[in-house]
């Protein structure tokens, strides 16, 4: 390592800004290099004498009194709690609470029941595995028309009578398993229908 670099390291060593390895390199160099040793001794003397020789002085009493008066005035003028830093933290905390609450409410909201889900409920209510399978296939596309057609088949098969305009059948948001009344239908006991035939 060259002497110029070592002289920088001598300065850094004074402030404790050298790594262990750099310190070791510096020590090894100083053992061998008289020029750098002299530089180190010289600058230590210059800095030591400068530290004691340069004018230090003290600020006037009026200056000190003025600063303390300003400090008291500032301290009395506003409640220290409402400093900008506290305000910033409070705003951040409020925003975080708002986001957390909003996320929680959104995740726990009442989710709309899909048409496929409603149809599955009806199919389960009447116990048709065939229709359930059909719904699970068509449910991927969520096409209401297909589902309405399936609903009609199901209801006819199981002894229900669908009104004349199946296209106008509307699915409600929530379907009670025990009351598939959302499909405006008339329930006729299948056994009775078979008996009529």
């Amino acid at each position, binding site marked *: 390592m060259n002497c110029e670099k070592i002289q920088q390291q001598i300065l*850094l060593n004074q402030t404790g800004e050298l790594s262990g390895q750099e310190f070791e390199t510096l020590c090894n160099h100083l053992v061998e290099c008289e020029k750098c040793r002299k530089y180190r001794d010289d600058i230590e003397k210059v800095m030591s004498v400068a*530290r004691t020789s340069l004018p230090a002085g003290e600020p006037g009493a009026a200056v000190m009194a003025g600063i303390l008066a300003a*400090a008291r005035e500032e301290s009395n003028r506003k409640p220290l709690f409402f400093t900008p830093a506290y305000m910033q933290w409070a705003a951040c905390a409020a925003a975080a609470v708002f986001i957390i609450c909003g996320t929680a409410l959104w995740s726990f909201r009442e989710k709309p029941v899909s048409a496929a889900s409603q149809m599955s409920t009806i199919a389960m209510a009447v116990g048709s595995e065939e229709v359930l399978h059909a719904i699970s296939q068509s449910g991927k596309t969520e096409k209401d028309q297909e589902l309405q057609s399936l609903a009609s088949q199901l209801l006819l098969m199981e002894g229900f009578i669908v009104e004349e305009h199946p296209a106008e059948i509307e699915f409600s948001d929530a379907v009670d398993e025990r009351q598939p009344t959302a499909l405006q239908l008339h329930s006729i006991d299948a056994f009775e229908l078979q008996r009529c035939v």
Partner: protein
Amino acid sequence: MEVTDKELLIRYRRGQVDALEALIEKYRRPLFGFIINMIQGRDEADEIFQEVWLRVIRKHVKYKHGNFCGWLVRIAHNVIIDRIRRRKPELSLDEEHEEGLSLGQMMQSNEPEPATRMALQDLSVRINEAVNVLPAEQKEVFLMRVQAELSFSEIARIQKVSINTALARMQYALGKMRTILSKDYRELNEKFDS
């Protein structure tokens, strides 16, 4: 157990003005020493010292951690630059003007006072003079290191330069001072050995 600077500042934030007084007392000498050697005018040094602490009072929330003295010196550095710019807009600390002098040098009194002239034989006065002929940036690094005892990483941060630049400025400053003081080395060695 000694109270840290941060604890004192927190106490001041809670309304205890005596905590700030303790901080002022602690850093009065290094801060004022740095300012008066940068400015070389007692009245102006007083004004800058006051301005530094008024900024601390107004902006104490900006201090997070680190060397409090370094923060004070940084504020002092900014106040000094503001004052120089207010006098001579768009000029830097090191830019040379009349007779090849920088603004930093122009701020100092060129003519030594009679009493000072008589005391030129004194070693400390010669050291003072040696410091004052340094270019402002080098002088500032030297004073930050010697008076405020800042590390080179702090000095580099204040001057907004790399640590290598700060080190190079210190090397130039010390080199020039070694040259200026070479005649006094015998006296310097005697003073040191005694």
